[in-house]
């Protein structure tokens, strides 16, 4: 009975999409940050489904994000590694998994996070985008050398 209930819930939560991207195995509780890091807002046209704390055989719990009719680019996908390095990406075409891939931590991220240093030139009206190199310790601002060591989502522009 319980299994049926779970399946029913899962069916509702993770309903198949015809075309688009399914981001699976997101660390539990990070789905909204994944959406944020992808720059998806209330004005985004594509249908979006989010499931959080879904039971997972391997992870215990996981989050899932499904984006209809949009295939994410490699640059977009790799941003996810900053907050959920175990996430997997499924590109769906006509209900079938066309491509399945993991996320790779990018070496450089541009225009994604704001430098917390108020004295940094990237926080002025100059025609540049913020740029951070991704280091083991965190994100390193290539302009002012500031290092963001935690809570990356709170710095997303």
């Amino acid at each position: 009975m319980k299994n049926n209930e779970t399946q029913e819930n899962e069916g509702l939560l993770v309903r198949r999409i015809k075309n688009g991207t399914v981001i699976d195995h997101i660390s539990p509780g990070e789905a909204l940050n994944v959406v944020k890091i992808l720059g998806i807002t209330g004005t985004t046209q594509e249908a979006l489904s989010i499931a959080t704390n879904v039971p997972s055989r391997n992870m215990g719990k996981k989050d899932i994000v499904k984006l209809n009719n949009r295939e994410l680019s490699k640059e977009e996908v790799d941003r996810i590694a900053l907050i959920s390095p175990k996430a997997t990406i499924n590109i769906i075409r006509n209900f079938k998994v066309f491509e399945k891939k993991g996320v790779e931590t990018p070496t450089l991220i541009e225009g994604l996070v704001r430098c917390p240093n108020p004295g940094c030139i990237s926080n002025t009206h100059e025609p540049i985008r913020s740029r951070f190199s991704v280091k083991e310790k965190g994100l390193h601002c290539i302009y002012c050398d500031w290092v963001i060591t935690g809570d990356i989502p709170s710095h997303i522009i």
Partner: protein
Amino acid sequence: MRHIISIGDFDREWIDSLLDHADRIDGKQFDSHALEGKILAVLFFEPSTRTRLSFESAIARLGGTSLSVGSVEACSIAKGETLADTIRVVSGYADAIVIRHPKEGAARLASEFSTVPVINAGDGAGQHPSQTLLDLYTIRQSMPIDGIDIALIGDLRYGRTAHSLASALSLYNARLHTLCPRGLELPETLYARLEEQGMEIIAHENITDIIPEVDVLYVTRVQRERFPDSASYFNVASSYRITPELLADAKKHLIVLHPLPRVDEIDPRVDEMPHAKYFEQSRNGVPVRMAMLMQVMQ
């Protein structure tokens, strides 16, 4: 095209080679026409005496000329022009640009928009590579840099000369001793980076503990505006003041450096002591900056 933006962009071999070059220049082994016909744009968006004059002196001694705007108020930045546009324009007028700017990362930005080499002459609380090179040069005149014990004293949070020098010294296995007012410690990110590079950093609370231990005292100015009132400023400033009495416990070869201008940090009586090297340090700005200009403009 080579820019000189941050000391962290260079390895020890490059630094040593530039200091060797400065040494030869200091010994008059240079061509005074080496940069004849070349123009250096000197863009200073913050006040400066030594850095600006020594760059202008350096280009003149190599046969080149310099261009500059009188003050920020007199240039198009005051009209709201972006630094990026200013740099694009000025790089059409000169063969290299020296820039000082109040924002950290300004020189890096300038290098992205310039079609000629850019030298950072200080960006906010960030980097000041030409000062660091002349600091290293001055230390090397008195002792090998490798493995020295050096004390950084004063405003270590906002003092870019201290940041830049500490970064460079991590290449020389130096041991860092720090002494600063509460709230003006080294920025956490810099501290973490230095430790990551294997640098030993020892924080002190009393100047008398430091003096007998170190080979170099690097004193920086604590700015009055960092304190809520004059009384607390004078209280702190006087506790760090270097005097002949304090130096009585110093190693014989200890040298005292200061990027200048000094206000109250060093007793004028110290000027006459063999430890005092800050005026030589200032003079060394010319040969070191001549070597830098030749590096990027030749």
